[in-house]
């Protein structure tokens, strides 16, 4: 399997994502510079977290206009799986690959901590390694993770099973306290209509070993790699 990690000026989880993918794939992904207009042949495109272009103007806005993203959007439309984490999720909504937008956290502050996530739909490729209704733990670390979409879009997302993860309590309850950023419907991650693009605010790549405090992220990547191979 081959994977490509997109690197923008200001990306800062690119290495973390590379390490996580390499651990599960047994080989390094390609690191692709934002200014390139060609993607190498790849089975998975991963857009990492960080502060592309400093998150100036709007998080993800400038990166969404970079040459490589035109290519990513094309490949996604053609069915290549895309995993967009944190800033990557913001970039994906800015390109229109995913609906909605990510606003400033309701609490106004950057928030970095582990959160519990309820698996809310079955997408064999991305979360087939988890049970529907299972609660997993990934960390969040963002300032603009407050998911917004208009009512119609939101209803459609829910109805079509496009909501991937919701912030939840340890027992899976969807409470306001479990929601770190004010996201509508506690949404932490969504799929596009075709189900080949996943955007999520939490960082599975940060919990990939006991040493780091947990392995739910490892399970996520192991399954993703297996399902693509």
């Amino acid at each position, binding site marked *: 399997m081959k994977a490509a990690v997109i690197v923008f*000026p*200001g*990306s*800062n*989880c690119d*290495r*973390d994502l590379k*390490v*996580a993918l390499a651990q599960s794939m047994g080989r390094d992904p390609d690191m692709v510079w934002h200014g390139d207009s060609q993607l190498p042949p790849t089975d998975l495109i991963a857009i990492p*977290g*960080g*502060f592309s*272009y*400093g*998150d*100036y103007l709007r998080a993800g806005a400038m990166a969404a206009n970079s040459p490589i993203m035109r290519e990513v959007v094309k490949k996604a439309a053609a069915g290549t799986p895309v995993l967009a984490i944190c800033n990557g999720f913001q970039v994906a909504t800015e390109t229109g690959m995913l609906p909605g937008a990510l606003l400033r956290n309701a609490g*106004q*502050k*950057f*928030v*970095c*901590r582990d959160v519990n996530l309820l698996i809310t739909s079955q997408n064999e490729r991305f979360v087939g390694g988890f049970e529907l209704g299972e609660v997993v733990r990934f*960390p969040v*670390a963002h*300032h603009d993770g407050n998911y917004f979409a208009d009512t119609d879009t939101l209803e459609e997302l829910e109805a079509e099973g496009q909501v991937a993860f919701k912030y939840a309590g340890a027992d899976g309850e969807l409470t306001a306290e479990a929601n770190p950023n004010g996201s509508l419907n506690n949404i932490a991650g969504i799929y596009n209509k075709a189900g080949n693009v996943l955007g999520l605010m939490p*960082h599975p*790549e*940060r919990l*990939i070993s006991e*040493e*780091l*405090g947990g392995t739910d992220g490892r399970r996520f990547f192991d399954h993703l790699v297996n399902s693509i191979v």
Partner: protein
Amino acid sequence: MTEITKEIVAEHGLSEDEYQELLRVLGRVPNLTELGIFSVMWSEHCSYKSSKKWLKTLPTSAPWVICGPGENAGVIDIGDGQAAIFKMESHNHPSYIEPYQGAATGVGGIMRDVFTMGARPVANMNALRFGRPDHPKTRHLVSGVVAGISGYGNCMGVPTVGGETNFHSSYDGNILVNAMTVGIADTDKIFYSAAAGVGNPVVYVGSKTGRDGIHGATMASAEFDDDSEEKRPTVQVGDPFTEKLLLEACLELMATDAIVAIQDMGAAGLTSSSFEMADKGGVGIELNLDQVPMREEGMTPYEIMLSESQERMLMVLKPGREEEARRIFEKWELDFSVIGKVTDTGRMVLTMQGETVADLPVAPLADAAPEYDRPWVKTPIQAPIRGEDVAAPNDLGEALIKLMGSSEIASRKWIWEQYDHMVMGDTIQRPGGDAAVVRVHGTGKALAITTDCTPRYCFADPVTGGAQAVAEAWRNITATGALPLAITDCMNFGNPQRPEIMGQFVGCIEGMKNACLALDFPVISGNVSLYNETNGTGIHPTPAVGGVGILKDLAHMTTLAFKEDGDIVLLLGDLTGEMGQSLYLREIEGREEGAPPTVDLAKERKYGDYLRAMIEKGLVTAAHDISDGGLGVALAEMALAGNIGAELEIETDLPPHAALFAETQAAYVITAKPDDVEMLRGFALADDIPLHILGTIGHTDLKIGGWLTISLGRLRDVHAGWLPELMAGPGSEQE
């Protein structure tokens, strides 16, 4: 041409004597640009004129020290061809004026110091001191400073893994914001600042130069400026995105061998960077200021040389390597400009529009920098306060609850949750423990990092307080199982021209020196911040210590959390019952009095070495040193971290409140599996080390037989609740 009057000299902060010395060195009257350069070079900040004599007495060497104080940051060997590079720096005044930008640019500055030397920053720390919690400005300052640190550090993608935070009225008008960065480099790829090679190009990279932070000189220069626009901002705005690019570009260039010398432009910008590079290399430098990338029009040489614009670096390259370097910086969309060359004249010659605008001798200027032996008086020592001298509380449990919810002990989670403390994927111990533990990427070893200082001890007894700061840092590292290697410091004091303040400085240095020697824990870098006063009241003396240690194998690491039902809780060390300067006295009795607890460095060394050896043998399941709030607070913190209670019995001749709340030094609470206790005791006995069994872990209460029983829930509520409650009040909104 501006005439140099007495007033102008005074506005530049130069004394009459200093100006006479300047005239002697130069052999003529300086022009305004030259005067500005002198004023900066001879400022307290750059010349260390009040502190140098005493700083020199600190131990700075050990076999593992690769580079001690004097460079941008200190360097230690951490094995396998790798080095840890670190330093701490203050940004106190700017953070008080504009908390967000002041703190942010402080973080940016300290990171540049570290990556200038070739290291990738891997961890940030911050040591913060605010005024009393109910001071009208405190909330605003806390929220702004924390947001600033978060804004800059998070964007850089360097985890902020710990720090310390105190609140005290002595900081009401003068907060302290000390930031520390730790980086990792290969020992054969460390970069220094001494310029060399006559004819080599001097290169400017990074952001453009604007009229940022042209400090005390502002008024003077405004007067001589024809287009007097609006009053110039003295606050710099940080651009973490540009710094992130600068970091990546510098590291990319450093992977080649094109760089001869490199120096960041920090305080005093182009002036101090160019002078330091020339002085260290014993060479001259010629700069053409027309080539300096500028953000604004009509900047004068004075402004260009004194600007404190951020995110800039100065380098000397090998001849002919300019284009290669330019390509890298342009790829990262940064300015790159050859602005001069190294010469053999020993002079700094600046030209602009074909004219020489300054011509100064480098070495004489540096050598003639003032150095003062300021008068000082010893701080009078207060009498110790013993347990018997302090009334027993009505209820020991309520006393512990009050301490756990006090400003000094309450959880700092509200702060560290705003910091990305996990990015880079190597944070093994997150904030909340004794020391943060950050893995060396791609290896099984790790660095343990802490910052410590107990200002109320330093105020009561500088010598003891200075020693305690170093000892606590050493203990916090030891409690993780790591071997402490070296420290950086940030010496925050009041006005050194007052003999009492100078006495605090001298005392703290003496204490630190003693501790560094006793613990093999040398000082490899640091920073001095004086004149932290408002209306003649100085801050508590605050020699913040940042310590770094090495864990050779992550398999042998402990945390402070209670682990498993049935584990045995032990006290390593003796309870002394010294109540002077304790938080108990302050929070329960409302007194800030007495001598701080004794620091016995021989015991520190012996007990700590024992603990580390036991951790290495795998006999210890949790460890936490005793500090603020004493044994009672240490136990409560361990129980909360593990979410398990304990049933304990404390045998002692001391009054219970003294046993629980005296801030005994050289002591730890540890836990072990029941089967390992005999072994632990055996090793302790052999070395004559006091080790007492306190009881067993289990259930959901902290129970100390006959003294108190408190549910963890109640402890957690007060401990977790205090800071968020404080910050929910008005004044804490963020931009």
